[in-house]
């Protein structure tokens, strides 16, 4: 069993309104020195295989087809 952790977030340059709101809230709470906040989502997949290379290929395909909208989002994949 391989666990794939997919992180999806808005591309750099695409305004992240949620990140901005969280940044504003942190400022209000006097957490100074926070330069930037980006909010994303994490999708955890358990994949029934031991072949890491194949798992990576499969998850990349999933990201391109459905898990991320590559018009506005970037993704990263970590296998554990």
């Amino acid at each position, binding site marked *: 069993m391989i666990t794939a952790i997919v992180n999806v977030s808005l591309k750099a340059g695409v305004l992240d309104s949620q990140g901005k709101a969280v940044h504003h809230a942190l400022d209000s709470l006097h957490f100074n020195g926070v330069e930037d906040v980006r909010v994303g989502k994490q999708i955890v997949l358990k994949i029934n295989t031991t072949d890491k290379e194949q798992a990576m290929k499969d998850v990349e395909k999933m990201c391109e087809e459905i898990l991320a*909208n590559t018009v506005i989002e970037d993704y990263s994949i970590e296998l554990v």
Partner: protein
Amino acid sequence: MKVAILQFPGTNCEYDTQHAFESLGATTEIIWHKSETIPSDTNLLVVAGGFSYGDYLRSGAIAKFSPVMKAVQEYAQKGGKVLGICNGFQVLTESGLLPGALKRNDGLHFISKHHHLKVENNDNIFLEELHNGDVVNIPIAHHDGNYYINDAGLEQLKANNQILLTYTDAEGNAQNPNGSVASIAGVCNKEKNVFGLMPHPERAMEVILGSDDGKAMLQGFMKSC
């Protein structure tokens, strides 16, 4: 004139859309998303508004894999006319039938109110009943209506007259409720047979309910089909 209206789990504007088109004299049929075909006599296919699949993952992201969408792709590629309203617009951008994407509104709130829109390009069957610069008053009701497209894409939209409508005030001055790039409320594809917009023309069919400006918009399809 036959209008086929798609229905996914979570769609909630299919009956409004049906009522609107029937009031203009069209015959309609609601098509469940499991159908692998659309009726052969369809003149216009409408992807109605709502919350397909509960907006899970992203608005419209899961609906694009419904069985009926393959038939929609084929229909559009053959030049069939497709209109996506609100969630339908999101489904069409997710499917790649329209350029760009819809993000969470800048203010993070769900916005539900009447909003003025300016007609930017009427050289298409959807808006041919209106004139460029006309201002219409149409309800909006969305959480993810913040239209995004990159700079190169925006230039293409402008060059091909693909921007249909922009958000404005009553005088036609830009007024952006949700952060959309260039205040864009609706676009079409380059071939001008696939149309998408966040506002709801089907909810603007009666003066007593606030506006009947939606009539002139939907009427364009009635004349051309």
